[in-house]
């Protein structure tokens, strides 16, 4: 008989985050917060905002993967939902900026 619920076998054993790795992620997030504050005072020209957003994205990725357990999830649709949300966010930001950034073009 076909297995209609492929996730259920693993799902009975949920990932429990070890305290040590959670504390390590927490410390990393605090260190990156310090780095982003420090980097804001260094003149990097147009790259200040790039550095700030890259650090923010690293922090967000750590939170999603480890604190939100996505690295250990057995629900394969969860990563799809996350990627879709990011895709549509970039669609919103990208197409809006494509409009505003090119209005002076002739």
């Amino acid at each position, binding site marked *: 008989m076909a297995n209609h619920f492929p996730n*259920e076998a693993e799902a*009975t054993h949920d990932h429990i985050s070890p305290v040590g790795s959670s504390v390590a992620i927490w410390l990393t997030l605090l260190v990156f917060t310090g780095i982003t504050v420090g980097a804001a005072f260094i003149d990097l020209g147009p790259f200040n905002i790039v550095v700030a957003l890259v650090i923010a994205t690293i922090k967000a990725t750590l939170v999603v993967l480890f604190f*939100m357990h996505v690295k250990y999830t057995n629900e394969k649709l969860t990563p799809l*939902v996350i990627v879709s949300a990011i895709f549509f966010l970039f669609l919103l930001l990208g197409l809006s*900026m494509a409009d505003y950034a090119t209005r002076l073009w002739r």
Partner: protein
Amino acid sequence: MQTSPAAVVEAHAHDNPALLHHFATEGQQKNAASLGMWLFLAQEVMFFGGMFCAYLIYRYKYFGDFGSASQQLSITLGAINTAVLICSSLTVVLAVRAAQLGKRTALVIWLLLTIVLGLVFLGIKADEYAEKFEKHHVPGPHFSYHELLPGQEGKPAAEQQYANPRHAEMYFSLYFAMTGMHALHMIIGVGIFAYLALMAYRGKYGAEYYTPIENSGLYWHFVDIVWIYLFPLLYLIDRHR
């Protein structure tokens, strides 16, 4: 593992009373609840995304004015609040862990600590808002703004350029809209966690059933992520000039 009708009947007969009749197994029920929460969070990404888009457009149009207005915020308070939220995310992780291990007292303590950290964040935010009211930096009829553009301090007084107050007002409109909507999410989060703490104290959650703890945790972490982006975009722009 095969799912025969007999196995499903057996799962319902002997196992978890929290297992609802339209789910075959606990694992399936948990995954469905988790996926539903992630779909809600995807919707939240688009909700905050609209405001981030507005910010991006106006930062592009009123570049220097936004830099000037941003420097009216306190980096110290913003950084402390970032750290407070990161600490609260750790307490949420530890609360989920305590629930998974069936440690009731630890669960209640971590939930209460999360609430305390959430309230510390909101207290600092309220202090920042109060300062904005005092300085007339709240958009509306009493708004007034007379500050230099970034990088103008060292110049002779006659050559100094000031920020356009209308453009600075747009920055503060976005500041209040974004941090205000974030703070509303925090207030709702504190309410949810207060309910969870009460139910956890009554022993409703344990290793067998902790879906509300886990999904509320996902919500809390999402609100943390929103702040992770708000902090550099609102507080840290043009500080090097």
